[in-house]
């Protein structure tokens, strides 16, 4: 099977085999996009400022996006909506904070490892109870677990209530790779370590979802009963995928704690953070691997930055989300191919633009007429 050339022919198209993935391939276009993406990630600390964006904020966006990538394993494959993934993000973040604040552990990578272990164990624990549930019961059970964890941390002196814990031993930043760094050096080393780990984790997730196990999760998502009767131990597999999915959140939360160096319950554990992680996956495009990452960057950026530009800063985010629901039906990454195709068609045939205007006009007219009908219904009742 193995050949030296990374290129191979498939269905009449030249595709690129990706190293370390046992034969997963990308089209030429996808390869180019991936390379650009990786370059952007590596250049981010230097590029962000040039285009007027905040690097730290983008970094946080990537972290929440990473949690969303984990959540997406459940959402896309087993088709389970989790409303409780902040538990693992926050669990990871608090593992770091507790070790640093109470046990004086100062090596960042050790802290990160602890975050992954604690968050994953938490996911395994919760997953054990929720794996047998589906649909909204699954969603609301995960939410309840999340809420109980939040309430416990929020009202416990050990976690210093809502004031949270600092990730600094004796007032210093943690060490990384056993070395102390300047503030900027710390941020850069942490960022690049994270990016490398993140790329590896994305690659692993990619392999996972294309493996027989990924296919089994798809089967569970599409028809649980059938899955059982072809011999899939459904609950055990859901449990495993729930745990893996929590691992991604725990990793992201751990890095978040190392980046922010102070962990509080509301930004990490509140159930609405769980909702946000879910929405990141959807708005980025949950049918794709990297969509949730993009969604994370976008939503975090919006949530943190709109207040600096707008007095009414909630509504703009709401309107953007509405636009995505209605005009990008598969989320940003999921809709990208359609949009690009549409754009190139319009480039070659400008006449289509007129049709677009008509479509928009008629959809607005439809909305208005629906709205007026509702008034009639209010007056005359259902019949």
């Amino acid at each position, binding site marked *: 099977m193995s050949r030296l050339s990374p290129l191979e022919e498939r269905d009449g198209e030249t595709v690129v085999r990706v190293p370390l993935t046992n034969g997963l391939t990308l089209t030429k276009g996808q390869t180019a996009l991936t390379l650009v993406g990786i370059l952007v990630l590596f250049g981010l600390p230097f590029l962000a400022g040039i285009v007027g964006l905040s690097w730290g904020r983008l970094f946080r966006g990537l972290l929440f996006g990473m949690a969303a990538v984990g959540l997406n394993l459940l959402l896309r494959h087993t088709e389970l909506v989790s409303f409780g993934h902040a538990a693992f993000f926050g669990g990871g973040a608090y593992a770091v904070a507790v070790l640093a604040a109470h046990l004086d552990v100062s090596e960042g990578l050790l802290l990160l490892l602890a975050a992954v272990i604690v968050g994953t164990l938490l996911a395994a624990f919760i997953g054990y109870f929720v794996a047998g549930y589906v649909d909204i019961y699954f969603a609301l059970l995960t939410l309840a677990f999340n809420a109980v964890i939040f309430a416990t941390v929020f009202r416990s002196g050990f976690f210093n209530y809502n004031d949270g814990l600092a990730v600094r031993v004796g007032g210093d930043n943690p060490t990384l790779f056993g070395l102390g760094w300047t503030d900027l050096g710390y941020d850069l080393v942490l960022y690049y370590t994270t990016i490398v780990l993140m790329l590896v984790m994305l690659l692993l997730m990619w392999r996972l979802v294309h493996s*027989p196990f990924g296919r089994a999760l798809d089967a569970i998502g*599409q028809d649980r009963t059938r899955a059982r*009767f072809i011999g899939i131990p459904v609950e055990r597999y859901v449990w495993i995928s729930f745990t893996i999915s929590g691992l991604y959140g725990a990793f992201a939360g751990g890095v978040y704690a190392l980046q922010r160096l102070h962990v509080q319950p509301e930004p990490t554990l509140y159930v609405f953070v769980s909702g946000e992680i879910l929405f990141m996956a959807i708005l980025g495009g949950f049918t794709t691997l990297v969509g949730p990452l993009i969604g994370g960057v976008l939503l975090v950026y919006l949530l943190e930055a709109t207040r600096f530009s707008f007095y009414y800063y909630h509504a703009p985010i709401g309107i953007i989300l509405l636009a995505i629901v209605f005009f990008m039906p598969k989320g940003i990454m999921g809709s990208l191919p359609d949009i690009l195709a549409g754009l190139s068609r319009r480039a070659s045939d400008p006449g289509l633009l007129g049709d677009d205007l008509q479509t928009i006009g008629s959809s607005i007219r439809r909305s208005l007429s629906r709205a007026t009908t509702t008034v009639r219904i209010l007056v005359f009742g259902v019949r």
Partner: protein
Amino acid sequence: MLEARNLRKEFGELRATDDVSLEFGTTPGEMVFIVGPNGAGKTTLVNLLTGLLEPDQGSVVVHEETDDGTTVERDITNVDPERRVNEGLVRSFQIVHVFEEMTVRENVRVAVLSRYDKLLSVRSRDDQHEDVEETVDDLLAQFRLEETQHEVAETLPHGDRKLLDVAMSFGLDPEYLLLDEPTSGVATREKEYVIETIVEASDARGVTTVTIEHDMDLVKTYADRLVVLVEGSVFREGDPTLLETDGELRRVLLGVTE
């Protein structure tokens, strides 16, 4: 041999299965048809055998020949459905259950992966197991699904979906295959084709099949043995010619008065 031993199941007041004792596969590879009027407890019986339901009383037992020729009994009454698949006990549903968003090939493949116990593997891509792919090819050929193998299951015509459902069951290498109305919803002219394909496949593999069927012409043509359920109990058991000869049976089943 698969044995139902004094199975009983009640839903509230209703006794859906009432002390049913039956044996399937006394002759390996036999084709048993279960018939009976609506509400006779046919589907409940299949559900009890395959583990979708737990009986209130009685047990489900598998008899297996060991190498030295003796027979070993194993009680699987409380075994999960997914584990019963490992015992060679496989079923299909009255309403088609396939993985709607997968292609035909992927549907079959996931069943075969399960049979080869490779579902937990993450080391390789799902389509890179040569033994699996060969088996998938065989099944697709046998069920005449090669042409549609790259189509998504939800877009298939109904007859093909039924066949796909059965093909997946065969992909699990069953010893006993329980089919709940494999021809329901299939156009009359295709019914024969569906059953014919199933018969061929099970003959080729020596699979004991237990089929719930309403079409008495098909039953007459294909059954090795007949089980008639009425109001949860076994009413008749025997040769399909009973359908011709037993007046009471004809009255119960077909509403024919003679």
